[in-house]
């Protein structure tokens, strides 16, 4: 039923047994298994609670990358109405690793940009596994500029392992595209909210992740380089990813303590993929509350955003 992670093995075993019993009962091969199923379900819930009680940073990396985790378009579809996606950078092409456009959120106009990883082989390939090329960032810049022109607040949903490392991407100015996108989002006059829903992978993430308020899901990660990359460069040993994940402080809880993010959105027991509707609803509630704060207290959003970033790291 789920793609189980290695540390979820006890849960997988129990849920497997439950499934078997249920099948037997359905086929009439077993009778009076109701009590046994209830007992196993309780044990399996306990096992899940145990597994998720204190996830290590490396386990969070696995949860953040879980293939069944809700992705950008799941949020867009559930939270927004009248979503009108825009396409293309008006210079070279359309990059579906970044999706975005305009929509309504609880009736109010909203601009949305996010990285989409895809949810099956076909859509993963179509969205390049959520790793954008320069065209994606240039499309993001277009949407940001439009949002500013029409005074529409911006929400970004961050979920990428990183910007795509390829020959074409380099030739067409991957670095410049990311830098320009960061600069544009920092300079917006409209208020902005950013939510790291899965992986915040380095420059490829920050390009759309600077906002007046930045939130992370409970098991999301956000880092300067992937744990695998850090292990291979700093330890010269790719098997040290767990150490890299721990030492680099990449969890939502670490980032809140370092005052990089403004809040954490709790995930259901067993991670966002076990109850996508619940986590999407919590995210929507927080977006609504934050937009409400912006409306109630309209400030110079560009200035607030800039000063917030300049202040980072100065009061640790």
């Amino acid at each position: 039923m789920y793609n189980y992670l290695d540390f979820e093995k006890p849960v997988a075993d129990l849920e497997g047994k439950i499934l078997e019993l249920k099948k037997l009962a359905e086929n009439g091969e077993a009778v009076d298994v109701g009590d046994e199923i209830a007992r196993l379900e309780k044990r399996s819930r306990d096992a899940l609670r145990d597994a998720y009680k204190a996830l290590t940073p490396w386990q969070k990396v696995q949860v953040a990358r879980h293939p069944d985790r809700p992705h950008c378009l799941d949020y867009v579809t559930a939270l927004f109405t009248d979503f009108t996606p825009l396409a293309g950078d008006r210079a070279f092409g359309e990059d579906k690793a970044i999706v975005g456009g305009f929509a309504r959120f609880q009736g109010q106009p909203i601009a949305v940009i996010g990285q989409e990883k895809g949810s099956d082989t076909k859509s993963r390939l179509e969205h390049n596994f959520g790793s954008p090329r320069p065209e994606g960032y240039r499309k993001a810049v277009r949407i940001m500029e439009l949002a500013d022109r029409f005074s529409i607040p911006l929400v970004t949903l961050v979920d990428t392992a990183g910007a795509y490392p390829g020959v074409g991407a380099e030739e067409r100015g991957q670095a410049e595209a990311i830098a320009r996108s960061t600069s544009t989002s920092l300079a917006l006059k409209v208020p902005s909210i950013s939510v790291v829903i899965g992986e915040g992978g380095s420059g490829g993430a920050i390009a759309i992740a600077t906002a007046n308020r930045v939130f992370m899901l409970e098991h999301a990660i956000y880092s300067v380089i992937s744990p695998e990359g850090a292990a291979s460069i700093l330890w010269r040993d790719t098997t040290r990813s767990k150490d890299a994940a721990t030492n680099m402080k990449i969890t939502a809880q670490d980032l809140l303590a370092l005052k990089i993010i403004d809040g954490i959105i709790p995930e259901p027991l067993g991670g966002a993929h076990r109850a996508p509707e619940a986590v999407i609803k919590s995210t929507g509630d927080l977006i609504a509350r934050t937009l409400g704060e912006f409306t109630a207290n309209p400030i110079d959003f560009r200035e607030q955003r800039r000063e917030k970033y300049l202040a980072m790291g100065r009061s640790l």
Partner: protein
Amino acid sequence: MNWITNFVRPKINSMLGRRDMPENLWIKDPESGEMVFHKDLEDNQYVIPSSGHHMKISARERLKFFFDDGEYETIENPKVMVDPLKFRDEKRYVDRLKDAKTKTSMEDAILSALGTIEGLPVVVTVQDFAFMGGSLGMAAGDAIIKAFETALERRRPLILFAASGGARMQEGILSLMQLPRTTVALDRLKEAGLPYIVVLTNPTTGGVTASYAMLGDVHIAEPGALIGFAGPRVIEQTIREKLPDGFQRSEYLMDHGMVDMVVSRLKMKATIAQLLKILLKMPVDAEAEAVPMPLVALPTEARPQA
């Protein structure tokens, strides 16, 4: 290593200065293998005379070669929290920092200064690759921000010489945050109508290119410099193909529209001074003591922005 090499040698070294006692009086051109006498090389700003190969130089040498008469006033870098994550990989980060400080006699990877180029007052900030690969962490980030703020206060253009392997991984997310932080600082300079020139030197890669090094009003590259976002090895592993000849080198970037010009180190000052004097609308015969014309001719809104 014992206490003598740890504590005595660095002091003696710093008293004598790094370049005063080269281990070899003859330096080998990595391109042609030709041996060049170190004094000749220094006189030629560490550009190999026959091949034109640009060697890496320290931030101090960069400032000395670039400013008029080699004179400048250093901008003091802000103090920042050291090792915020208490990071260790194979080695403790604080020890890596100590080694880098000893090796370069710098506090971190950035050196900024005020001075003039062909009479024009400017702010220059230089990244030193010798200090932990010129990596961008909190100290470097704050130093760059301070340089931009100084340029803004004094209404001077800023020239940044980039040389970096990217973000300093030992500072984790705090190093990534230097991308937006430096971007804020440079955008404010541009919005004030002051020019920002980037000189890309060998090598400039990673997060540094994904922020201030690619946001200049004008991009100049030194010949043959490696410039790119993803490292060539990572790209090769991803696409499983051999990379094109000259990939991610200055001339390649020029062909692909990412830099405005590739300029020899020996002509760098003249090229930048000439352009800046035009941008700042200075008279043709502007000499030393020149001050930029007051920027009152255009209303703020009409001025070109970032």
